[in-house]
């Protein structure tokens, strides 16, 4: 589903990603953990080309997005993304936020997009907020709307970039709950997070990144209980 081959990313003289090789299978939930500055967010942002890729290849369902001939906008419609800072459109109501891309990009009729949007809002428990502006929502509600907005494009893959890091502690749970539900329904997900509990419970595989490389990867139980690398051990001892 996602194949990342020898991915390299350099910002100026700073080599953020050294050589990343990852394959994500359909319906798999891959959780990426690691200290800040380890390159995990950059890695995630390379998967839908929000960052230009310095070298290497990223294939989404067999399509090489680093190929200049690839229509990246088309690939992105299949790859939903949820951001740490939500990035809802403040000038649009909740339902308009959700309908915008389906109507403008997928050319779904407005009525159909609205019905689908309301259904998604029901799914994330915010149907009553359809007509309000994002500014009046709490952080957790905003993030749930952001998830609904990404799902409205009916993506095959969902990327989560530290979705709970900007939230007050009591709101983390409601967002993770929605993500768990999504994983259960078989969504292919790549999640960058500091929520070790989520990684352990929901992840099929955990990648530990540090210094621009994947230091260690494995099933959550294995990686959390028997880390092989020293760096993994020292990181886990600090966060667990």
């Amino acid at each position, binding site marked *: 589903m996602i194949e990342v081959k020898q991915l390299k990313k350099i910002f100026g003289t700073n080599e953020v990603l050294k050589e990343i090789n990852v394959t994500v299978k359909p319906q798999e939930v891959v959780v990426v953990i690691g200290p800040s500055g380890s390159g995990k967010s950059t890695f995630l942002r390379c998967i839908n080309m929000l960052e230009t890729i310095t070298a290497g290849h990223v294939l989404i369902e067999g399509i090489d997005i680093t190929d200049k001939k690839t229509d990246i906008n088309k690939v992105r419609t299949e790859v*939903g993304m949820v951001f740490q800072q939500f990035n809802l459109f403040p000038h649009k109501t909740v339902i308009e936020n959700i309908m915008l891309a389906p109507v403008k990009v997928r050319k779904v009729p407005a009525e159909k997009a609205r019905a689908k949007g309301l259904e998604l809002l029901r799914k994330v428990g915010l149907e009553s907020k359809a007509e309000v502006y994002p500014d009046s929502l709490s952080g957790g509600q905003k993030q749930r709307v952001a998830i609904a907005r990404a799902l409205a494009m009916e993506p095959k893959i969902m990327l989560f970039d530290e979705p709970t890091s900007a939230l007050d502690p009591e709101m983390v749970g409601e967002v993770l709950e929605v993500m768990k539900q999504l994983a259960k329904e078989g969504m292919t997900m790549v999640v960058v997070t500091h929520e070790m509990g989520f990684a352990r419970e929901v992840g099929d595989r955990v990648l530990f990144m540090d210094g621009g490389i994947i230091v260690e990867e494995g099933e959550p139980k294995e990686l959390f209980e028997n880390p092989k690398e020293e760096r993994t051990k020292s990181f886990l001892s600090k966060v667990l």
Partner: protein
Amino acid sequence: MDFRWDLIAEYAPFFLKGTLLTIGLSIVSILIGTVLGLLIGLGKMMKRKLLALPFKWYINFFRGTPLMVQILLVHFGLVPLFLGTTNAIVAAILALSLNSAAYIAEIFRAGIQSIDKGQVEAARSLGMTHVQAMRYVILPQAFKRMIPPLGNEFVVLIKDSSLAALIAAPELMYWGRAMQGQYMRAWEPYLTSAAIYLVLTLSLSFLLSRLERRLATE
């Protein structure tokens, strides 16, 4: 000092005619200047420096030289070049539009650049093209932030349109000067003109602050 209200009453039809032309000049110039300003602002933001350069220099020129010089250049140089003969109203509209476009371009640029990068990223991650992200996400938000500085620019433009009197475009100031010449009075024509300009600029400010309130999302 006696203030001759009767002279103002006598001259009222000319002030009315002048005011209508001032409003017309201003509205047309604001519209052209805004469209042109958007294009120039977007041009200056182009990533390739060489392509952005002409837009940068357009702004440098029109901000860095007096409007009066520009009006004279357009009136006696540019318009005859294209129309064969000159036309004061066309020249006034052209000079005011070109001039305000330079300022409006900078207002657009500041407005667009003030929008958080995450907004474009969210729009692009949903599959929108750069143009769609601009049109549906960035520009509507930027526009809201641009209303106060745009309002300033429009007020300046209304006042600056008085310079068109120099090239004998029969707008408000032209009739003010004509009245002074005819009656050899200073207070009546110029205070009347000032009052009318004030009404125009205050009305505009009022309309813009209403627009701003209507676009509020909280």
